[in-house]
Structure formats: C-alpha cells, structure tokens
C-alpha cells in the first residue's frame, strides 16, 4: 500500500504489518526474512519520511496500559498508546503529560523516537527526560531493557533515534501532577521579531510559552507575532474532554493556496489572535492541540502535500539568523499558515535529540519545485549560525547538512551498528541523510 507522513510527501509503496500484540511483533522480527529495510511506525504524525520504508511495522495495536502507580505518577504502557489516551487516564487522577506535542495523535513510541518537545522545554526538558525505562526489540529478536542505569548506550541512541535502533515495545513515563487542566493564557502582541524575542526573554519563568508569527509580514513588521504564555489554573477542571469538529474530506486543489490567499489568511489569523490579546481562561485542548479539531487538515495543501521546516539556532545569534530567514521567506511569499517560534532550554545527552539551547522556528511550505532551492538557502543560514533541523519534520535535508549539524551522529552510528549489525532498521530518511547505507 501507499504510505506517507503527515506532510503527504514523499510517498512510498510499502508493506505495512499491524501485529495484534507484542508477541506478534517479536514473531515478525524473528521469522520474517525481510528483503528490504524495516521501520517502526506509530501515529504517522512525523511530517516527512522518518516512518517510511519498504516494510513498516505499525505499533497501532500495542495500545494497552500495563500499570499505573497513582501515588508516584508513573505509568507503564505499550508504545502504540497515543497522547490522547494517556491524557484520558492521567487527567482524572490529577496528572498531566509532562511534555505535549501540537497534536494528541502522537504515540509514546513516536514521542520517544523523536524525543519530542512541547511549549515548556525551557522548564521541563523534552519527552525522554521523563521516560524512566523502556523495552527495545532488537533486530536479532532479543528484547533489551533500557534506562539511565541499564544499557545506557541503547537508551541515549533510541531516545531521539528515529526508530533506527529497534522497536520500542513498552515504556514507563513519569507524569506531572497539576492543580488543574484549565489553562490561564496570556497573549502579548509584538510588532516585530525583535520585540517578540524580548518578550520571550522577559517571560522565561512562564510554564508554557509559544509565539505565533506571521511569516509573510515584511519590513518593519517582519516577524510580527502574538506570544501565548500559559499556566495551569489552581482551581479548575480535572476532566478529560474531546472536541468534535469538521473533516477535510479530500485534497483541496493546490492552486487555491497561492501567494495571495495565504497572505490573506496569515493576515486574518494574525489579527484574530491579536484581538484575543490579554488574559483568557481556555481549555487545555484548544491551547495544546489547536488543529486537532479539524480531521485531516493536512489535505488542504493539495495532493502533492507540503513540508514543514523546523530549525533551531543558538540564542546568541537567534535574532540575526531568524531575521535573515524570515526575510527570505517573506520575499518568496511561499510561507504558509502561521509560523511558530519557541525558546528551548539546554539539550540533553541523547545523541540525535533536536532541542538545544536557542530559538526554534517552524515554517510550512507547499510542495512545489521552487521551494527546494529556497529551503537549501535556509539550510545554509541555519548551518552558518550553528543550528540544525528537526528530523521528525524533515523530508529533504541533505546528508551534508545533517552531518554538519548533528555533532553526535558518528557515535550514534557506532551504537546503531552494535545493536543492528545487519542494518535491518532503516527509513527513507536514514538512507537519505547517510545514517544508514543507501542500499
């Protein structure tokens, strides 16, 4: 069947296996002589080709909870459990996920493999900082127990390792105790990028912080944005709720998304968010998962799909680098929707984890031939400032760019080769960026 990531580019014909339980995953790895490479797949919410290969093993049915220690807030569950289900169980008991991505459809396995970050990285680190242990199925069929005490090398390579070390079967996660899940959101408007960065720096103590940026504004208004700070309310709801919304039934013809329509849209969004400036009590799902309400929203970018480009640059050079980047993007008129700007705290010891001290910017682009040259130019700016790109979003970065920005890639390959000597686990992405060989 044809598979793709959330960006619907690229696509590949692959055989997808959906084992009904952990024992079946093991049986597949033991019995099946795969002719081509294999990669695990969770919710398919990575944008590019991280979860694409000729053979894909879905963790969809590894979705059971195994144990919940309500006193300590540790929960053990299958790798296929989604953030949504995690919240369903955690919230009524007064707990919350320590790190949340922008969609509730991400799985625990995918969150570990990309060592995902939330709007609180500065304060709470990334997802794997809250993982206590996990079991990892190796290519040999052996199951390895990994933690910061046991099989440490496998642990630091698997956290952020994009499924290349093996299949995470189940994991233990430490949840966070919160007073309520009602969110008190404060929105601050800034007229340009400089102001926005100043505001972020000033409000570093805020629990959650994310800026929505108009990537088409130019000149004086370059980088104009609305910063959303947020805290959990002391008294508020302790109830899981799910919003229902419309579905995008099929791909929108791509020509409807042109320079003018997106500019209009970005303008409208900016003024809408600006209007909501000030303090507001909001639901956690509308704060954390603003787009989840529209099913299949990725279809609006047309059949050819789209690409998300997420970069991080060190704090010192952030203003200069981001100005250069936003200028190029605004002049090209190709940036879609609204961009997101966040500040990261320090990096952790995981070899391929993305977050590192600095500013991270997320931009969306429709997949069209001219975009690739633009992105190549952005790569050069990112590299020049000592930054890097997020593998979970990437569909096109070159081997050269990858190896010049991820300093620990050689150490990663060394551990990967020890864990998977025949290189069974590989994705389109790992082959493209030279983490595994091309064949």
């Amino acid at each position, binding site marked *: 069947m044809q598979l793709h990531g959330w960006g619907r580019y690229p696509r590949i014909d692959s055989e997808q296996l*959906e084992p*009904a*339980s952990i024992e079946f995953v093991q049986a597949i790895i033991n019995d099946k002589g795969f002719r081509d490479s294999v990669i695990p797949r969770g919710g398919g919410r990575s944008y590019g080709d991280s979860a694409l290969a000729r053979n894909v093993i879905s963790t969809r049915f590894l979705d059971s909870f195994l144990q919940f220690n309500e006193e300590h807030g540790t929960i053990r569950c299958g790798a296929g459990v989604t953030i949504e289900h995690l919240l369903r169980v955690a919230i009524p008991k007064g707990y919350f996920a320590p790190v949340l991505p922008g969609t509730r459809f991400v799985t625990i396995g995918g969150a570990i493999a990309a060592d995902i970050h939330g709007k609180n990285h500065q304060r709470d680190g990334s997802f794997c900082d809250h993982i206590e242990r996990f079991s990892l199925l190796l290519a040999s069929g052996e199951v390895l127990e990994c933690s910061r005490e046991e099989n440490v090398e496998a642990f630091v390579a698997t956290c952020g390792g994009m499924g290349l070390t093996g299949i995470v079967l189940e994991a233990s996660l430490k949840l966070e105790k919160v007073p309520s899940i009602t969110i008190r959101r404060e929105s601050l408007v800034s007229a340009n990028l400089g102001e926005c960065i100043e505001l972020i720096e000033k409000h570093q103590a805020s629990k959650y912080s994310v800026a929505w940026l108009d990537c088409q504004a130019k000149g004086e208004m370059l980088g104009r944005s609305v910063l959303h700070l947020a805290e959990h309310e002391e008294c508020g709801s302790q109830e899981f709720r799910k919003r229902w919304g419309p579905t995008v039934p099929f791909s929108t013809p791509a020509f409807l998304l042109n320079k003018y329509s997106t500019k209009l849209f970005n303008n409208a969004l900016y003024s809408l968010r600006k209007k909501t400036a000030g303090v507001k009590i909001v639901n956690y799902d509308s704060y954390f998962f603003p787009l989840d309400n529209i099913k299949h929203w990725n279809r609006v970018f047309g059949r050819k799909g789209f690409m998300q480009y997420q970069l991080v640059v060190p704090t010192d050079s952030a203003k200069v680098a981001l100005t250069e980047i936003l200028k190029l993007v605004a002049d090209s008129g190709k940036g879609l929707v609204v961009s997101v700007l966040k500040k990261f705290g320090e990096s952790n010891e995981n070899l391929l984890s993305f977050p590192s001290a600095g500013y991270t910017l997320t931009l969306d682009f429709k997949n069209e031939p001219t975009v690739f040259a633009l992105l190549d130019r952005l790569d050069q700016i990112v590299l020049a400032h000592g930054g890097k790109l997020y593998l979970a979003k990437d569909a096109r970065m070159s081997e050269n760019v990858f190896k010049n920005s991820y300093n620990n890639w050689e150490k990663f390959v060394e551990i990967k080769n020890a864990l998977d000597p025949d290189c069974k686990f590989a994705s389109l992405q790992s082959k493209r960026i030279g983490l595994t060989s091309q064949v």
Partner: protein
Amino acid sequence: MKILLIGATSAIAKAVARIYAERHASFYLLARNEERLKELADDLIVRGAAAINSQVLDLTDTTSHAEVIQNAHKALEELDIALICHGTLPDQESCESDFAQAEKALNVNGLSVVSLCTEVSKILKVQGSGTLAVITSVAGDRGRQPNFVYGAAKSMVSTYLQGLRGKLLPYNVHVIDIRPGLVDSPMTAGFEKGPLWSTPELVAGKVVRSIDSKKHTVYVPGYWRIIMAFVASIPEFIFKRLKI
C-alpha cells in the same frame, strides 16, 4: 455496571471495554489467548474498571459453555450486558474445497454463538433484566461469492436473534444485533483499505450508544444499512453474476 465480554481480545471488544472501563464497570472476560487476556485485564484496570475476572477458553468448546457462563454470573453476581464478539474470517476458497474448513468457520461464527446465547438467555430470563448484544456482520445480509460461508454463519445468528428478541421481551431482556461493515482490525490485516472502512474505536462508540438507547438491529457505520438495502434489491438473475 456488570459486563460479560465474550471474545474479549477482539479489537472491537477491546475498544468497547475501554469505554465501559472509563465508566467504572466490572467485567468478566472470556478469550482464548491467556497472555493477551491478562494484558487486556491490566489495561482495563488502569482505565478505571472496578473489577475484572476472566477465563481462558476456546469458544468453540460448546460443552463447557453452561459451566463457564454460570461461573461468570457467579463472579459478577448480576449481568447487565453480555456482548459476544469473537469470530474468524475464513478463506472462502478452502471452505468450498474442504468441508472441514467450512464446518470450522460455521462453528466459530455460528454454532458457538448460538450456544452462548442459549446459556446467557437462561440467566437473563431468571434475572428479568439485561442486554444481550451480538456482533454479526453485514455479510449475513445476502450470500455473496467472496464470503458466503462466513455470511451464512452470520445470517444464522441474525435470524436466531430476531426470534430470541421476541422470546425474551416478556422477561424485560433486550437483544441487539450489531452488523459492522468493513472494519480495519487484525481480522482484515491483509486487505487494501479504502474510504468505506471504519475503525474498531468508531464501531465501539456506536455499540455503546446502541446498547444505551436499546436499538434492535444496528449497522455500523449507519450508511451500511443503505448499501446493504441496495445489495439486497439487486435481482437474482443479475446478482448471481456479480463477484462482489
């Protein structure tokens, strides 16, 4: 709420159980794979189930049904809902060339279900309340070339339930026949999936709503009622030539 779940490790059954676990139901689970049964029990406890008992059993072993169902009743004390979910999708071609295969399929999907309904009905009649819900299939609506052995078993159960419904009415016992269309579950692992397919979670939501609102025959999703009405309306001289 006390629930007897038969074929509990089926994807649809699991999804239904999770909804009831959030409502703090107590369960008695029957399934044939011990390890997966244990996994499901742990999962339901974490999701809020009040209590769980279970029994490992090959459901085609009809001689044990009376005892097993009585044990379940003893453990639960009361029985609010009994949901029968197990089934297999046999290879039609091998059923045509080898009666042993057809017999097996008819046993799992048909006779074992009738046997279980018999035992559950006895208990519900005495109790004077409760709901018996059975998952059949749209495949039972008309015998079609690709799966008429499976379809025959399912239609047998549907016909049986139609009669049973009336018989149990005076005892205040409700009977629901749930007919899913195409569901993306382990049963259909090798199939190419398209827009008509739904998920076990979606089916489960509808199963629970139908039990809540005491429906009789439920198509899941609802559009299958229209599709099957159309299929049923095709004249036989045309239908016999169709490989659908």
